[in-house]
């Protein structure tokens, strides 16, 4: 079905190839798992299958990619789109129209099908993908998982035989991610050929029929998915917990009492939150997407105001603090590190907040060392990898030494080694500097390996607060349909 023959590709303006000398044969009906660390060439390999490489990106390509008997180079993306459906990471950026129905119609319209055929096909695929009830909803009113499902349905409705998916679950919560993987399992059973690049390998190993691992643009392993655990354990499982004895959690530095919040015209997003965070501990809050994690983070950072309840920071009520005092006390890093990056160099980015607060540059070198950014000081932060961007974002906040660091989904979209790297740095902030960390995430692997305590946020309330093991058990039960 898909044949790579000695394929190499180099993007324009780069010195080294993104992939080199790739030989790969994918049979009809295969479920191929493509693994590898960030920057190893997975996305480039996938984009060769539907012709985005080289037709969309330009660059230099050698070798041949043949899909269902069609050589991709003399062909074009439009023709290949009838055979290969491509699904990308971020559902928000690839949902091109204004409703689920028009999204499903869109690809078919591009194929020039008749209106009657489009209506018939859309109705059929909406029923088989369980989208009938949300067909006329706009993207702003559906979840990330539903968006991603609608996009898979829209490419399936084009009559494609091959589905190429580039980390389609990386932006989804565990529940939606499991639903997406179950959907792929069904499609594979129906005879679709599936090529999936994924970071969270443990949950797809049993579905895939074959796995390849890429490193520096080359295939270093090609075999049974089960072999991955033996040959590349670091890509499958997080290393054992790296928690070490640091300063014992001290007195409470944050106390949240009876906190209630509602967005205008909506019901309560948070209702009666009670929470205590002690000094020098890592407290994780886990919740499903839309469960109120980010709202709580914004309230604690003083960016939103609750309609009832209070937050005490080291005994002082948050409301009594000035904006400057609050900024010094609480640092927050948002989900998308890109929202933190607006300077030309890493050095300027990391030093900005500190300079803005009039703290000078003394001690900044320690921050660069602690985050492993010394070699990257002169680089543009937007040119860095996802993990490096996340480090810059956290470093830019830690530069002014807040006592409480709030991390909202810091590991989203990162591979396991990158996640582990970020979390080790976070642990060192707790153990070496006594920083208190509030981690908001639905990445249970990270929670289990690095948290001191865990709280489960469910339907706007804290339903459990205590040991990580018990919290994760309860949260997993909540995810069950």
């Amino acid at each position, binding site marked *: 079905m898909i044949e790579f023959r000695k394929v190499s590709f180099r993007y324009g303006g780069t010195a080294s190839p993104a992939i080199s000398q790739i030989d790969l044969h994918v049979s009809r009906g295969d479920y191929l798992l493509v693994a590898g660390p960030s920057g190893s060439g997975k996305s480039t390999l996938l984009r060769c299958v*539907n012709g985005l490489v080289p037709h969309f990106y330009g660059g230099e390509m050698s070798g041949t990619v043949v899909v269902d008997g069609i050589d991709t180079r003399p062909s074009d993306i439009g*023709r290949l789109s009838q055979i290969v459906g491509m699904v990308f990471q971020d559902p928000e*950026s690839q949902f*091109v129209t204004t409703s689920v129905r028009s999204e499903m119609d*869109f690809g078919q*319209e591009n194929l020039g*099908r008749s209106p009657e055929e489009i209506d018939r096909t859309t109705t059929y695929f909406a029923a088989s993908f369980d989208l009938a009830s949300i067909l006329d909803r706009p993207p702003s009113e559906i979840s990330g998982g539903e968006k991603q499902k609608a996009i898979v349905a829209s490419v399936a409705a084009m009559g494609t035989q091959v589905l190429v998916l580039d980390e389609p679950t990386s932006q989804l919560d565990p529940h939606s991610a499991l639903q997406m993987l179950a959907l792929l399992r069904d499609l594979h059973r129906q005879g679709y050929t599936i090529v999936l690049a994924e970071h969270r390998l443990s949950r797809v190993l049993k579905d895939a029929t074959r796995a390849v691992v890429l490193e520096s643009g080359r295939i270093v392993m090609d075999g049974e998915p089960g072999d991955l655990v033996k040959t590349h354990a670091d890509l499958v499982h997080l290393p054992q917990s790296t928690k070490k004895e640091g300063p014992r959690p001290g007195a409470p530095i944050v106390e949240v009492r009876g906190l209630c919040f509602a967005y205008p015209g909506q019901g309560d997003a948070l209702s009666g939150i009670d929470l205590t965070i002690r000094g020098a501990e890592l407290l994780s809050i886990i919740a499903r997407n839309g469960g109120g994690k980010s709202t709580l983070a914004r309230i604690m*950072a003083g960016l939103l105001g609750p309609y009832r309840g209070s937050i005490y920071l080291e005994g002082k009520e948050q409301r009594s603090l000035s904006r400057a005092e609050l900024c010094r006390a609480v640092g927050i890093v948002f989900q998308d590190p890109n929202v933190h990056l607006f300077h030309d160099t890493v050095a300027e980015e990391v030093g900005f907040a500190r300079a803005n607060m009039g703290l000078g540059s003394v001690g900044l070198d320690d921050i660069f060392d602690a985050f492993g950014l010394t070699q990257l000081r002169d680089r543009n932060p937007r040119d860095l990898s996802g993990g490096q961007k996340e480090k810059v974002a956290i470093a830019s906040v830690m530069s002014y030494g807040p006592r409480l660091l709030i991390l909202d989904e810091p590991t989203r979209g990162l591979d396991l080694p990158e996640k582990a790297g970020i979390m080790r740095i976070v642990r060192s902030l707790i153990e070496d500097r006594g920083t208190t960390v509030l981690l908001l995430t639905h990445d249970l692997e990270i929670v289990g390996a690095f948290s001191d305590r865990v709280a489960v946020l469910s339907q706007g309330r804290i339903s459990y607060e205590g040991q990580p093991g018990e919290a994760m058990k309860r949260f997993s039960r909540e995810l069950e349909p």
Partner: protein
Amino acid sequence: MHRLGVGAKIALFGSLGILSLAFSDLAFLLAIVCLCLSLAHQGRVSSRAWAFLKPFLAFSLVVFAINLIANQNGDNVIYRTTLRFYWTRINFQLTLESLSLSLRMVLRLLSLVLVFVVFTLTTKPEIILTGLSAIRGMESFGLLLALSYRFLPTLALDGTRIKDSLQSRGIVFDEGKRIDRARAYASLGIPLVANSLDRSLQLAEALESRGYGMASRRPRRGISRLLHPSLAAIYYLSVSSAFLALWLLAGVGRAVLFTEASHLPSVLPFIVLYLLPTMWGVSE
């Protein structure tokens, strides 16, 4: 109102727009304004329509005053005076004719604005955009508008996130001197543009991957939906054609003055005939 088919809505509001340009009788123009307000009420968009209308009310007053001053013709004088401005004398007279003309201009302006506002408030933008995309030669423009509309909430959300991130690092947006606040807001620009460029690249990939631009001729689905003959649309077109014919042949709706109210008896059926389908709950 919301259940009414798009074709019927285009027929309804399109013909009301045409009639508001054709009619010059005050009673008929007032009837169109009342009709639109009633349709807005039925569609439960009165408060939003009012928000759109408010700025036009001030503008309407200006239009009224200019017409009153510029046009002093007519035999039915209500008030006459001479204004002395330094060494010049300006004669001003208020006539029934000029008052009537000024009111007509204001009512026509308001009815056109209301026709547009009530139509857009009771019709999903997606449907309008789909229709636009289906017009031959307008496909790319239609898609561009649809994408802009689709990504407005995303852009707004990105802006809020960036603002939050900057605020948490000590940038103050709502306090201090104007220049400082302007500087603070300007700092939103770089990450917002950079994020939007990233997104546009991903969007272009998604469009290409789904064969955009491949079909030499996309099916004209929007147009066929819009022009799908519905009973309500045929009804509105028939009623409008009848009134246009009466306007052409019998001069219905062509009054000039308040005093000439010979066509007043036709206004009531005009209102009833237009309101009937929506009051009856016709959806197509």
